[in-house]
């Protein structure tokens, strides 16, 4: 038995690890055991990738299967990291169509969480850009799922948190890029209204996201920096920075958070100072276009190894909700107001426009998603329960990949597709087979 936690270091559970060395070994493991869940690189924040009894690690499923430069179709085993795909293909002129905020996720995990990136408002999530995958079912059978084959399982597995089976390999279509650079523009929003207006008016940009100063209050509540970007063409690069190589080398990790980072360093005052400096620095560059390497653009936190440790030994949770358009402005303002009053120090608060998703219990829906980190304290969960009431009241939901503590009621209210998933789990007898600590907690 091994004690396992997610990226937030909370909660921790003992589980037995299973480490298949190749995809072919997985079906047998699956057919012989109950209460198991697949785990990629453990970047889900809470209890989603901790098996009730067994946890299937996908580290051994790290081979690429094939790549066709003509069609840009890439087939990989499910344990391959996006980081691996990026370092292998970015310099060859290909890029994943959807990348989340960290490149250290596996392809299997990206499907199971239907991860979204800064282009979700335009291009949808990881599942929308997926061609097909192979899934090991509870009876030891392996099936291919796509938009034309086993379509129900396809839709239920995208965002399905591993509860339909173990993904063995997947085929994705890569995007062609002319350079490894992004052409970025920063805009300043003085409050929440202008942040929302700015995000809406920049909806035609491929990538857009807002960083919010979560400690700003009063008339500055919701003040933000809005970043929009496009993959730089060869012409863009030659105009802006003729001195640069079209395909820069991947960046190395430069910083590492020590094992015992004193968490008291992260308090209201220090974050306020940080946010002020960050906001002023961003505001000073507003309007100008700049070229930025794909790595720091998409994955700013990846350059700091173990950044999750800054929240200390007790761990942290990330609260990520999505609020449908109609009530978004009012509810977001209320949430931000409560957070800033409480004085919780969330370093990175992010606001982003999402569109509908096609997964049965996939997270995104048309509206705004807000993500905030909270170090775990005695009063935190009661506070988050109150935020959840606002979210549910507005027809919103919480992201399962980040969740460690929402109630069943919150979950059931947010995910109308749940009965469909439960049905599929019953039919394929996946219900006893595939059980994570999260699915047990939420009664999926």
């Amino acid at each position: 038995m091994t004690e396992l936690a997610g990226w937030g270091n909370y909660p921790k559970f003992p589980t037995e690890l299973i480490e298949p060395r190749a995809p072919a070994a997985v079906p047998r493991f699956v057919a012989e055991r109950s209460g198991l869940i697949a785990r990629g690189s453990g970047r889900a924040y809470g209890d989603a990738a901790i098996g009730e009894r067994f946890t299937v690690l996908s580290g051994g499923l790290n081979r690429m299967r094939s790549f066709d430069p003509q069609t840009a179709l890439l087939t990989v085993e499910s344990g391959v990291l996006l980081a691996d795909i990026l370092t292998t293909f970015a310099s060859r002129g290909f890029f994943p169509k959807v990348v989340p905020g960290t490149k250290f996720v596996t392809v299997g995990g990206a499907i199971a969480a239907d991860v979204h990136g800064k282009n979700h408002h335009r291009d949808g999530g990881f599942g929308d850009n997926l061609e097909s995958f192979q899934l090991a079912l509870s009876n030891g059978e392996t099936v291919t799922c796509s938009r034309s084959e086993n379509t129900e399982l396809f839709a239920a597995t995208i965002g399905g948190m591993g509860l339909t089976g173990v993904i063995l390999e997947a085929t994705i279509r890569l995007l062609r890029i002319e350079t490894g650079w992004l052409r970025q523009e920063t805009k300043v929003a003085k409050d929440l209204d202008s942040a929302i207006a700015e995000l809406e008016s920049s909806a035609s940009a491929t990538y857009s996201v807002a960083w919010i100063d979560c400690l700003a209050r009063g008339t500055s509540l919701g003040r933000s920096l809005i970043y929009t970007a496009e993959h730089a063409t060869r012409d863009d690069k030659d105009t802006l920075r003729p001195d640069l190589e079209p395909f820069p080398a991947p960046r190395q990790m430069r910083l590492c958070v020590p094992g015992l980072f004193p968490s008291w360093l992260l308090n209201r005052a220090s974050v306020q100072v940080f946010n002020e400096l960050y906001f002023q620095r961003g505001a000073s560059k507003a309007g100008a276009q700049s070229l930025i390497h794909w790595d720091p653009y998409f994955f700013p936190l990846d350059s700091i190894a173990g950044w999750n440790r800054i929240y200390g030994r007790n761990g942290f949770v990330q609260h990520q909700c999505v609020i449908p358009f109609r009530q978004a402005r009012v509810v977001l303002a209320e949430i931000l107001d409560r957070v800033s009053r409480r004085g919780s120090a969330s370093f990175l608060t992010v606001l982003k426009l999402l569109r509908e998703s096609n997964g049965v219990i996939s997270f995104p829906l048309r509206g705004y998603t807000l993500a905030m980190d909270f170090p775990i304290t005695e009063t935190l969960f009661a506070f988050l329960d109150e935020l959840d009431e606002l979210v549910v009241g507005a027809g919103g939901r919480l992201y399962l990949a980040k969740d460690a503590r929402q109630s069943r009621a919150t979950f059931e209210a947010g995910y109308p597709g749940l009965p469909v998933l439960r049905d599929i789990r019953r039919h394929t007898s996946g219900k006893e087979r595939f059980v994570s600590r999260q699915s047990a907690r939420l009664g999926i």
Partner: protein
Amino acid sequence: MTVQKHLLVIGGTSDIGQATALCYARAGWHILLAARDPGAAQRNADDIAARTEVEVSVHTLDVLKTDRLAGFVAGLPILPDTVVCLVGELGEQERAQTDLALATLILRTNFEAPSLLLGLFSERFQERGSGTIVGVSSVAGDRGRASNYLYGAAKAGFSQFLSGLRNRMAIAGKVRVVTVKPGFVRTRMTAGMNLPGFLTVDPGKVADEIYRAAEEKQRDVVYVSRRWRFVMMVIRAIPERIFKRLRL
């Protein structure tokens, strides 16, 4: 590269073998993978081809069937420029102390088979007048210890074989022989072991060192981590009278 170069990896399904093949493929080499399990080797071959677009071929070989080694070498589509031998079996020391079949397997896999095979390649390389032989041995062969002396003894034999072969080839001319001692590597062989972090490396690091030693620098004996060279110097220097009582 003007002339297409070819690398043969013996033990092409090992983690270090895969990393080494990939490292050479990135430098533009064509790859031949030899392994006992052609299915597993094909999986690695596909991986390398998807990543690099180089040609990779798979060749079935059971090194313990020593009467077939000459046929294997003769049957290759091309005589490679470099051959890297990663054949090895850690075994279980304690069981092997009484299980003669296991002890024999450890001795044959780590010493007999790789030595015979590389010996065959050295003859062909010498005929051609060029070639590089890389034998992956082990720091365990530097001094016998209670915890793994069967493996260590076989690796010691292999290291001495490589040393003698290098000597002969150096006098005769153009064939190079490189001995690589990786130390602890995070692989399937060591999965589940409690390894000291500062002495442990990833397979990719071993691969980089193999490429550097064999193709860029003219190295003879390579400790993948410099720290190991020092550690083994100390371990070798301890008088036997004291060493025999130590638990290392």
